[in-house]
């Protein structure tokens, strides 16, 4: 996937930006006037992304600030009002999930019940936007220096976590799980689709941020070498991070498995008044059979409470996205020694990564704005950045409401996926067929002094477009086949997620999100066509 898709498309975008020396709107306009819509679509997608992405940074700030306590607030359940036990919602689910769903998000049972803005989250969101503003205030020059920090610090933290993770009890289970290939999953096409999409988004193709950054490069910069190096480093980092993740995952799964076994042991000891220490994890199954034979009635009463503990089941509970970052990791951290230190390091790293992504997004929005003559010449950089940050912050307050997380999921799932695929497809086709691959070759020759070899040309012309088209078709058919779209809502009475259907207006918003960015491309072409026609008519009437 990396070789077929990642590297060629990365090289393409970097080269376009470096050659045209403008942000995404200007760059595509230079390739062909009909393609100004592509640039606008990129900017729109980046705008949507920056709207909802900074909420993640707000959550990271929230967890970071709460890590300075002993014990960690998500380690234990809070007590109920008459102090005889724990809160019931917390009893039904785990303390980390309770902290996430109740104390961080204060989530409502469904999308319709909007609730009010949570002031704590609003404060954290404001702080996150202030940090982003501080970094982009002086333009890309200052952003470059900030990125030195935000890019290198996560590596340090990952190394610390690697050492800590590998020395944890049960980490080996996770690593085994990661490295044993599961052949039946490999044959499932969904796995390959997810891999392709993952490469796409992790490299940041189609957002316009790559073009924006490349436009600040020297024209003679060797972007071919940079593209290869960047994509290789990206993949290596992904593997490195997944080693860390899986070792911590293995630790958590082993810990949960052992707690489950201990609970069963305690239950049996108490029910049958056996001596402490007579039941261990090793002899549990034979003792269970023995007890079942000797005391059939009492055992039958206990059977509904005895859970079958399985390490594989724990490892298989696949979580992704915000759940992985905030629930699973915080659960693993609370069981380590000196959890405050690891918690602070982890959420600081998450913050650095998030702010790094935000810088790319805002650069993608700001570069076209500052390049344009309408806005860029009239207002100084600081004012434009300030206005953009302020607008995004105000819109982002939607995500701090009680139902905010459901809206966040809508944006997360639908704002970027389809639009990006379409944008990158149009980009590849435009450069190869409309601009002409020979012209592009000549441009690259003038820039870096070397013509691209046959590998790049084949990838650009045939393989990557085909791959993207197939991904696109797959996603469309998936959406159509599943009928009404559904979402996961948190049910406080049961203490778990339940599936619900989206209400009508939510579906309308989803449609609007996808349409707003994809329609820019044909609309842009149409407007240029109309403008040219009018100009030609005017010229012809004058002449």
């Amino acid at each position, binding site marked *: 996937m990396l070789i077929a898709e990642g590297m060629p498309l990365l090289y393409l975008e970097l080269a376009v930006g470096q050659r045209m020396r403008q942000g995404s709107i200007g760059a595509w306009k230079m390739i062909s006037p009909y393609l100004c819509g592509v640039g606008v679509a990129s900017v729109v997608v980046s705008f949507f992304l920056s709207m909802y992405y900074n909420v993640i940074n707000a959550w990271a700030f929230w967890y970071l*600030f*709460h890590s300075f306590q002993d014990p960690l607030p998500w380690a234990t359940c809070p*007590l109920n009002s008459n*102090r*005889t036990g724990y809160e019931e919602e917390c009893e039904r689910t785990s303390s980390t999930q309770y902290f996430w769903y109740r104390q961080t998000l204060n989530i409502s049972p469904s999308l319709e019940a909007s609730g009010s803005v949570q002031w704590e989250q609003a404060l954290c969101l404001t702080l996150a936007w*202030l940090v982003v503003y501080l970094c982009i*205030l002086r333009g890309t020059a200052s952003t470059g220096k900030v990125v030195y920090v935000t890019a290198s610090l996560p590596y340090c933290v990952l190394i610390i976590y690697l050492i800590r993770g590998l020395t944890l009890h049960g980490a080996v289970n996770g690593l085994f799980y990661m490295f044993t290939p599961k052949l039946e999953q490999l044959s499932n096409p969904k796995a390959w689709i997810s891999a392709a999409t993952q490469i796409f988004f992790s490299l940041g193709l189609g957002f316009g941020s790559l073009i924006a950054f490349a436009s600040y490069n020297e024209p003679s910069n060797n972007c071919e070498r940079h593209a290869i190096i960047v994509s290789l480093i990206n993949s290596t980092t992904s593997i490195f991070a997944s080693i860390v993740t899986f070792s911590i995952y293995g630790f958590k799964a082993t810990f949960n498995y052992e707690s489950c076994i201990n609970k069963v042991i305690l239950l049996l000891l108490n029910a049958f*008044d056996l*001596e402490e220490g007579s039941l261990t994890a090793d002899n549990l199954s034979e003792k269970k059979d023995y007890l079942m034979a000797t005391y059939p009635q009492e055992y039958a009463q206990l059977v509904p409470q005895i859970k079958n503990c399985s390490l594989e089941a724990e490892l298989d509970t696949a979580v992704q996205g915000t759940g992985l970052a905030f629930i699973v990791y915080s659960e693993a951290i609370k069981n380590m020694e000196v959890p405050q230190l690891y918690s602070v390091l982890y959420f600081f790293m998450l913050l650095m990564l998030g702010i790094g992504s935000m810088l790319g997004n805002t650069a993608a929005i700001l570069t076209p704005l500052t390049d344009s003559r309408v806005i860029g010449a009239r207002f100084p950089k600081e004012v434009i950045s300030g206005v953009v940050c302020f607008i995004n912050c105000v819109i982002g307050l939607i995500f701090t409401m009680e139902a905010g997380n459901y809206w966040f999921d809508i944006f997360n799932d639908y704002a970027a996926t389809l639009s990006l695929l379409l944008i990158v497809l149009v980009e590849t086709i435009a450069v190869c067929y409309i601009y002409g691959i020979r012209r592009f070759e000549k441009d690259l020759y003038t820039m870096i002094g070397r013509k691209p070899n046959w590998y790049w040309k084949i990838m650009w012309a045939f393989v990557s477009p085909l791959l993207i088209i197939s991904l696109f078709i797959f996603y469309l058919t998936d959406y159509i086949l599943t009928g009404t779209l559904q979402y996961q809502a948190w049910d406080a009475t049961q203490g778990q997620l339940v599936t619900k259907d989206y209400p009508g207006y939510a579906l309308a918003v989803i449609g609007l999100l996808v349409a707003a960015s994809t329609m820019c491309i044909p609309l842009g072409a149409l407007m240029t066509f109309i403008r040219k026609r009018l100009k030609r008519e005017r010229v012809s009437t004058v002449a």
Partner: protein
Amino acid sequence: MASEHGLGKELDTRAGGSHPCGGAGWGSARARTSRSLPAPLIATAAAPSGTPRPARLGRARRPRCPETDAQNAFKVRISIKTALGDNAYAWDANEEYLFKAMVAFAMRRYSSKSTTQISNVLLCNVTDRVSFWFVVTDSSKNVTTVPGSVVEAAIRMNRNRINSAFLLSDKTLQFLKITSTLSPPVEPSTPVWLIVFGVVLCLIVAGIVFLIVSGIQKHKKKNKESTERENLEEKVEVTVTLENGLPCEVLDLKAGHINGVFPADDERFTSL
């Protein structure tokens, strides 16, 4: 302790009492012993009274409780190995004596009348788990058992003293019917996170203000410089004289006098 052995025999012969430790049986046995002789002597007296003692295996067996549910008796469950691990002590008759002493202490402290004796606390049905039932009798009131609510209140009041006597906690020394009041978490007056938030916020705002102000100053300086340079250029333009269409600075006025081809004066002679 031996008196309990004697009582055990009583229970075995009696047909089902109203509570686990054979209420009436307990009471009457109590009355008998208290009327006649002090406890240790009764032990030695009761033992050779003729009825064969049940065989002792390993741990000392307490009398079997005829029924296991009654409102005045409480089941206790102790998990020593979980609490202490390698430092665990064995649960034997001495520990039971200590337990009875603690319960008696709790009763005395609660009701603040010193009538409860260690012998008032009766244990039965001790298992390997280390769990047993106990009941507190009242010797002054015609050998009835003390109501459960009183016992519960007494134990609740002195729970941590009882726990620390055994080096255990609420979880490892469980009174099954008595729910423990969980201690509230320590809440600082201002939540910690707000303090950290405030610090970070101030730093960031200070950085932004600094950058904006320095940007405005640089802008002003640049404006001033560019206006100064413009004025300077105007002045220079006024005074420049034109010589044959070229401004005089361009012409090197010395060029006509010294011919650069020949070496300069001080180099005319080769050095020695």
